């Protein structure tokens, strides 16, 4: 079968791409999607090790990560809608002060 290290390598590449997205893009929605990409890279590592050790704990943890990501997206998008109403933009550079 396929060596474990290939799956870990793919996860590392996806995680690095997610970090690049967070650092480079200015659109807050794309920054959010890059965060989801990093969550997925972590999930991939969980599943790969779940298969490697033949135990189910990894899959259970992935389910927890998914629910937490869903909660994070709900709150984050709500924040984004509010910011867009206030400023008419979701550019992360323009929201640099906390004063309403």
């Amino acid at each position, binding site marked *: 079968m396929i060596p474990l290290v290939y799956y870990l390598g793919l996860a590392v590449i996806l995680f690095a791409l997610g970090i690049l997205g967070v650092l480079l893009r200015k659109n807050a929605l794309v920054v959010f999607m890059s965060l989801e990409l990093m969550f997925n890279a972590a999930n991939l590592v969980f599943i790969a090790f779940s298969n490697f050790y033949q135990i189910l704990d990894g*899959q259970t943890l992935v389910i927890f990560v998914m629910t937490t*990501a869903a909660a994070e997206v709900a709150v984050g998008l709500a924040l984004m809608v509010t910011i867009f109403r206030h400023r008419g933009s979701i550019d992360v550079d323009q929201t640099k002060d906390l004063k309403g």
Partner: protein
Amino acid sequence: MTPQLFVFLVIAAIAVIAAVAMLLSRNTVYSALYLIVNFLAIAAIYLSLGAPFVALAQVTVYAGAIMVLFLFVIMMLGAEKLKEQEPLKWQRPLAIFLSLALVGEAVYALTSHIGQDFLTQPPTDTLADPKAIGALLFNQYSLPFEITSIILLVAAVGAVVLTRAGKKEEEKS
């Protein structure tokens, strides 16, 4: 090259290309669609690793629910074609350097500690059993499970409170 390796390489290439396209796309709707492609490719990898329950949860929860929420917000805000400012001049090379440093570090750690001789197993029935996952969730992981439910409740309430129009706006309308 075995058939399994060939399938893995094709799916991995699709996942990486979709992720890069998501980063480079100027239209936010296209970014979201490319991310869905990436999620589906990763779900296929979960299937090949013998985790069909998680693979289908990935398709329904991530590619279904979460990305639909994203697309809904993009279209509601009309944010699909927002002009982006250029990033600071030193930011782009520094970001690329830091990500490459992370990849290099990870490659070194992986090749020096985990060699090619650690192999994944072919899919088995015991690992793919949703019943066993449920039993694990409700026995060994019952406390995290309950905490997750509270997190979801707080997130739902928080989203409603945050998007509710303020008192002043209510008086105006």
